[in-house]
């Protein structure tokens, strides 16, 4: 890993942690409903700097922001960790297999879907242990995830475009 990559990862992680922690302060109508705006950073990192960097940023964000918020190693952390890693892994695999097939919005939707599925699975294993409530909640979660996924994808697309423009003009 080059030192330039390290700086990038550090900077992007800092942004992601700031967004993640800020988002945690926002009140939401349902306690477990999150906008997932920190995933914008993950997505932009993946498209611009590749899978390794994106996974690093996700891991750093989830672990450090949970320490800041005070949920480290708690159930919320496990949910956040599982969701973050799974969704980053999913979009990473899709992006490296078919780099041109999906735009940022599509990748964001995949990320949101896998995030929700991982969290539903973890919720099933850790708390509920009944399949009916999970099945009842999952379509709602997928729909909400789709809506937030579009918003995040559009923002990520704008971010990616402006960063690539900057790079071109500076070099």
């Amino acid at each position, binding site marked *: 890993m080059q030192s330039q990559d390290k700086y990038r990862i550090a900077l992007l992680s800092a942004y992601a942690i700031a967004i993640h922690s800020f988002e945690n302060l926002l009140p939401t109508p349902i306690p477990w409903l999150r906008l997932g705006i920190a995933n914008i950073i993950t997505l932009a990192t993946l498209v611009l700097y590749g899978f390794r960097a994106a996974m690093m940023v996700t891991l750093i964000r989830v672990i450090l922001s949970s320490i800041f918020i005070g949920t480290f190693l708690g159930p919320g952390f496990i949910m956040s960790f599982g969701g973050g890693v799974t969704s980053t892994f999913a979009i990473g695999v899709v992006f490296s297999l078919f780099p*041109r*097939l*999906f*735009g*940022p*919005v*599509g990748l964001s*939707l*995949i990320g949101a*879907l896998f995030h929700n599925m991982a969290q539903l699975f973890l919720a099933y294993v850790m708390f*509920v242990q*009944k399949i*009916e*409530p999970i*099945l*009842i909640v*999952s*379509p*709602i979660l*997928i*729909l909400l995830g*789709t809506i937030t996924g*579009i918003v995040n*994808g*559009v923002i990520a*697309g*704008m971010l990616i*475009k402006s960063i690539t423009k900057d790079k071109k003009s500076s070099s």
Partner: protein
Amino acid sequence: MRLKELTEGTTIADKLLLAALIIISVSGFIFIKKAFPQGTDVIIEVNGKQQYKLPLNTDITVSVKGVIGDTLIEIKNRKVRIKESPCPNKICIHNGWTDKGAIICLPNRVMVNIGGSVGIDSQREDKPRKTIDAITG
């Protein structure tokens, strides 16, 4: 910012994925609502022994053998009533249609209990409430 700028960079696969996700979630929502209706059970006991456990959302008429005769219990439109009873005062029949609590016919020792819900509700409430609406003599 114009809409075209926002949708710039989205591919056909993006749109297909979006459509698929919306279809899956909406149809899943409808399917699950049908598969797991907010089910409440009707439990019919005679002399303290459970005879029937029926879902409230299925229309059915059942006959149970009580101490002094047969009681006919009808479930219709998510409501329960005692249709026929051999008891002298017929208070249980006059109790009419109900969708919560219980109907008890004391002479025939028949108790119709509505509650003991299945699905999500059973987690929220650890103990189903057992309120008695009417004791009939």
